[in-house]
């Protein structure tokens, strides 16, 4: 049986991973395998881990405001590694217009602070239904 594997990563310099951990726990409790890599990850580290762990989804969590540089960098690196089939989502304090821009660049979903974890779980599960991924 195929199990959904998710990488939860915190790029950038902020040291708050409470939100990331809450999401990680919710995904685990929903039966997914969550690979957690800890704080201060560079986009390079995130993409390398995603490839080796062969995850279906990357969840980026960021509060420092550097999302417009770090998130696109992750997308670029995935493309460079021919791994753009991995779904990329993000969470944090991200203004609506930035979120739209990031989606235009290839991110699948952006969640604001305080999004119910159920919503995130349901979203990922639906996207990962058989046939949804190549």
């Amino acid at each position: 049986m195929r199990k959904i594997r998710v990488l939860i990563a915190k790029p950038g310099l902020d040291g708050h991973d409470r939100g990331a951990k809450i999401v990680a726990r919710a995904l685990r409790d929903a039966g997914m395998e969550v690979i957690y890599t800890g704080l201060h990850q560079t986009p390079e580290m995130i993409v390398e881990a995603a490839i080796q762990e062969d995850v279906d989804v990357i969840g980026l969590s960021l509060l420092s405001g550097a999302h417009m540089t770090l998130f696109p960098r992750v997308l670029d690196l995935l493309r460079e590694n021919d791994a753009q089939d991995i779904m990329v989502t993000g969470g944090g304090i991200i203004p609506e217009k930035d979120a739209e821009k990031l989606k235009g660049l290839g991110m699948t979903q952006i969640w604001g602070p305080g999004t119910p974890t159920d919503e995130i779980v349901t979203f990922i599960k639906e996207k990962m239904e058989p046939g949804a991924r190549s």
Partner: protein
Amino acid sequence: MDLVPRILGGDRRAVARLMTLVESGAPEAKKALAELHPHTGKAHIVGITGPPGTGKSTLVDKLALEFLKRNKTVGIVAVDPSSPFTGGAFLGDRIRMSTVAMDKRVFIRSMGTRKKLGGLARGTNDFIRILDAYGKDIILVETVGAGQSEVDIVRTAHTTIIVEAPGMGDDIQAVKAGILEIGDIFVVNKADRDGVERTMRELQTMLELNPDKEGWQPPVMETVARDGVGIEEVVDKAQEHMAYLKESGMLEQGLKQRAELELLAIVREEISRHVLEKGVEREELDALLDRIMQLELDPYSAAEEVLGRLRDR
């Protein structure tokens, strides 16, 4: 494209993808593993086990770094428990492996224990086989040392390192878990903490009480994995242990034992599957179960009946 030539050619994405196929029980995985088999047998497999929080992942990170310094490439399999209820898992070993995670000569894969066909050891065995064929010289397998399935995993390793730390309660955890016998090297990590001497002494005493393994005397060593202290010595010992296995003929003997365990496990699994697919229909099985519950039939006779039907078909 076919994964096997890509793996043999050094493509890490193919390695990662085959591991996923293996875990999901995909039929094509079996074929790929068969094709990889002739390319295996070169790696030194080192199991690292012990209670949670003793610093195993940190130690694995530092051991990997030391092996890299000695011009060895490294594969890492980090196993963490899955929830038996939801099947989900939190795999956090990578947090502690950041020193080597970006090195091109290292490949790290996290694994949940899940409910695996043929047991957990089969899954890790397959991962080890893939990394071996991929060309990794050293394969480090981290598991939480708690029970039988962990012991089984460790059986697949050439060298087993058991990690303890001071202040984890009064007892030596390895003794409690009954895994003292399988240790080739004992490491007391967090030697920066109070109580190291006591833990070292207790381990030493337990090992002396234990009927000694022929030939190899398992050393008790101390490390501060967080600061990289004592790591070279552990790697020296691991390499010494491998040399000992070769010289004494234990390596060959071990390989044969391992092959037997694995073969029989696969046969067992295939037989059960065959029986369940071909031997009994679901309704027949339910009928048998009913009779067992009604105490009309005992499970041994029921099993005879199932196997009998298989023979007749």
